C-alpha cells in the first residue's frame, strides 16, 4: 500500500495519523498508511461495538450465568427452607428439558416452531404472489405501494387488538363465516387466529423484499426465455425463482427469526399463560414477571440458542447473503453453494 500521495491538496500523508481530524468528522481516507486507516476505522466503529457490548453481549452472558442459579424461597435437599441464590449448575435446564417444567417448555417449543413454520411458509407464498403482481402492474403502482406498507407500519400491539376484535365471539369474523367460533378459547382456533393475524401483517413486507429481488432481473433475460420456448409457469420456475432466491432466502431468514421470537401477537390476541399459543418468549416473560429469574434466564438462553442455530443454518448452509457480500468488492467463489441449489440441468 502506497505511503505517500503527491497531490498537493492532500495533506494527510505517510505519517498516517488521523490526529488532526476534528472530532466527530467521519472522513474516509484513501491514502495514508495501513495503520492510519485501521486506527481511524476502530475509532469510528468502536462506539457502536461498545454500546452493543453493553446492551446485548452483557445481557446474553448474564442470562447464561443467571440461569445457573435459582433464587427465592425453596426447600433444599434436606427439607430446610432456603433463601437467596443457590448455584444449581445445569439443574434448571434439566428441570426444563426433562423435569417438572418440561411439559410447559415443550409445549411452548412446539407452539413456537409450529407458528414459525406455518407463518413463514404462508408469508412466503403470499409474499411471492404479491411481489409478482406488483412487478407486473403499471397502473395503481403508487396505491399498491402505499397499501402494502400499512400493515407493516401498524404497531403489532394495535394489530393484535384489531384482530382480537375481529375474532371476538360477536366480531366480524364469526359474522362472515356464520359461525360461533370461540377463537380466543378453543385450542386450535386460537392458533389459527394468531397465524392469520401474523401472516396478514407480514406477508406484504415479504412481498416488498421479494419485489426488490425481482426488479433486479433484467427484462431481456425473461424475453430470451420466452424466445427459447418457455411458458409463463416454466419461466417462473426456471428463471425467476432461481434468480430471486438470494432475496427470498434473506427475507425468509428474517421472518423466521422474527417468528421464533413471537410475543406481542399471542400475548395480546389470546392472553398470557394459555397453553394453546404460549411461545417461548411468553414463557420466559411469564417466569420473569413471577420473579423466577433463574428459570426465566434459562428459557431466555434456550430461545437464544434456538434462534442462533436457525440463523447459523441459514447463513452457512443456505448461503443467506445478509451483508450484501456478493455485491461488495470482496469476490469469493460462491459457485459451490449455487450448484447445490436448483436450476442446473445436470
Amino acid at each position, binding site marked *: 500500500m502506497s505511503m505517500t500521495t503527491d497531490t498537493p*491538496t492532500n495533506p*494527510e500523508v505517510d505519517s498516517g495519523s488521523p490526529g488532526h*481530524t476534528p472530532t466527530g468528522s*467521519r*472522513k474516509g481516507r484513501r491514502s495514508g498508511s495501513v495503520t492510519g*486507516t485501521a486506527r481511524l476505522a476502530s475509532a*469510528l*466503529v468502536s*462506539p*457502536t*461495538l461498545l454500546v452493543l457490548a453493553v446492551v*446485548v453481549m452483557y*445481557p446474553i452472558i*448474564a*442470562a447464561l450465568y*443467571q440461569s445457573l442459579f435459582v433464587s427465592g424461597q425453596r426447600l433444599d435437599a434436606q427439607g430446610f427452607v432456603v433463601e437467596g441464590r443457590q448455584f444449581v449448575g445445569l439443574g434448571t435446564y434439566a428441570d426444563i428439558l426433562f423435569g417438572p417444567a418440561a411439559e410447559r417448555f415443550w409445549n411452548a417449543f412446539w407452539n413456537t416452531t409450529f407458528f414459525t413454520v406455518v407463518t413463514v411458509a404462508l408469508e412466503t407464498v403470499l409474499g411471492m404472489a*404479491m411481489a409478482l*403482481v*406488483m412487478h*407486473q*402492474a*403499471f*397502473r395503481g403502482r403508487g396505491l*399498491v*405501494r*402505499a*397499501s402494502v*406498507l*400499512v400493515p407493516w*407500519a401498524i*404497531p403489532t*400491539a*394495535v394489530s393484535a*387488538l384489531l*384482530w382480537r*376484535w375481529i375474532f*371476538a365471539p360477536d366480531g*366480524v369474523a364469526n359474522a362472515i363465516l356464520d359461525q360461533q367460533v370461540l377463537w380466543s378459547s378453543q385450542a386450535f382456533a386460537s392458533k389459527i387466529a394468531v397465524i392469520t393475524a401474523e401472516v*396478514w401483517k407480514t*406477508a406484504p*413486507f415479504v412481498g*416488498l423484499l421479494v419485489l*426488490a429481488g425481482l426488479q433486479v432481473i433484467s427484462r431481456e433475460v425473461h424475453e430470451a426465455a420466452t424466445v427459447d420456448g418457455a411458458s409463463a409457469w416454466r419461466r417462473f420456475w426456471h428463471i425467476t425463482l432461481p434468480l430471486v432466491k438470494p*432475496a427470498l432466502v*434473506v427475507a425468509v431468514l428474517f421472518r423466521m427469526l422474527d417468528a421464533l*421470537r413471537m*410475543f*406481542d401477537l399471542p400475548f395480546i390476541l389470546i392472553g398470557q399463560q394459555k397453553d394453546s399459543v404460549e411461545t417461548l*418468549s411468553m414463557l*420466559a*416473560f411469564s417466569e*420473569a*414477571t413471577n420473579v423466577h*429469574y433463574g428459570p426465566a434466564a434459562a428459557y*431466555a438462553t434456550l430461545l*437464544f440458542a434456538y434462534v442462533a442455530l436457525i440463523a447459523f443454518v441459514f447463513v452457512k448452509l443456505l448461503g443467506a447473503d*445478509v*451483508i*450484501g*457480500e456478493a455485491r461488495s468488492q470482496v469476490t469469493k467463489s460462491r459457485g459451490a453453494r449455487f450448484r447445490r441449489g436448483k436450476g442446473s440441468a445436470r
Partner: protein
Amino acid sequence: MTTATGDARRTTRRRFEIKKWLPILGVAGIVLYCLAPFYWMVVTAFRRPADQYDLSPLPRTWSVENFLAVFEPGTGFGRALLNSLIVASTTTILTLIIGTSTAYALARLAFRGKNLVLSLIIATSMFPGISLIVPLLRLFTDIGWINTYQAMILPSLSFALPLAVWNLTMFFRQMPQELEQAAMVDGCTPGQAFRRIIVPLAAPGMFTTAILTFILAWNEFIIALSMVNEQNMQTVTVAISKFTGATQYDQPFGTQMAAGVIVTIPLVIGVLIFQRRIIAGLTSGGLK
C-alpha cells in the same frame, strides 16, 4: 392464411385480454387484503359504543364518543403518547449519532475484519428481546431504573442500532467512491469535503434510517411492557393493550379501536408521505 392460423390468432388475442385484466385484479386483491382490516378498525372507532357490534359497512350513526373515551383521565393515554414519543425519538437520535460514523467506516474504509464486524453487528439484532430483558430486568430492578425512560431506551438500542448501521452502510456504499476525492482535487480540505459534499448527500439516507428506526421503536412492546409497571410511564403500545372496560369481562372494543386509530393514523400518513424512501430503505439491504 389458413383457418388454423386464423384460429391461433383469435385464441392468443383472447389470452391477451385476460392477461390484461390479471394485474389489475391482483392489485385490487392486494389493496383489499392490506386495507380491509384497517378499514374495519376505523369504522368500529367511529360507531357509537352502543352500536359496537353492528356489522354495517359504515357506521349508522357517526360518533366520536370512543375517541373521547380514549382520553378520559383514567386511561393515561395522552401521557402514554408522550412517553412513546420520548422513547422513540431518543432511541432514534442516539442510534443515528452512534451508528452513522460506524456505517461510514464500514462502507468507505478498508480494514481487516470488516465483514466480520458487519456480520457481528447484524447478528446482534437477531437476538430475542426477552433474552436481553430477563437479565436487564434484574439489573434495573437492583439499581432502581424500573419505570424510567432509560430502561426502555437502552434495550431498544439492541435492535435499533444494528438495523440502523446496516441500513446506513448499504446507503453509504451506494455513494460513488470518488466524491471526496473529487472535492479535494477541487480544493477542499478533508473536513470541508465532508461537510459540503458528504453530509448533504447523506442526509436523505440518514433521514430514511431515522424514519425506519422511529417506527420500529414506536412499535416496540415487550421491552416497554417489562420495564414499566406504573401507568404514567407506559408507552402507548402497552397502554392500549391494557384498556379495560367496566368489568374484567367487558371488552371496550370501540375505545380500543379508537385508540388504535389515533396511534396508527400518524404512522400511516407518515408512511404515505415517505413511502418511496421507506421502501428503498427496507429493501436496500443486501439486494443492491
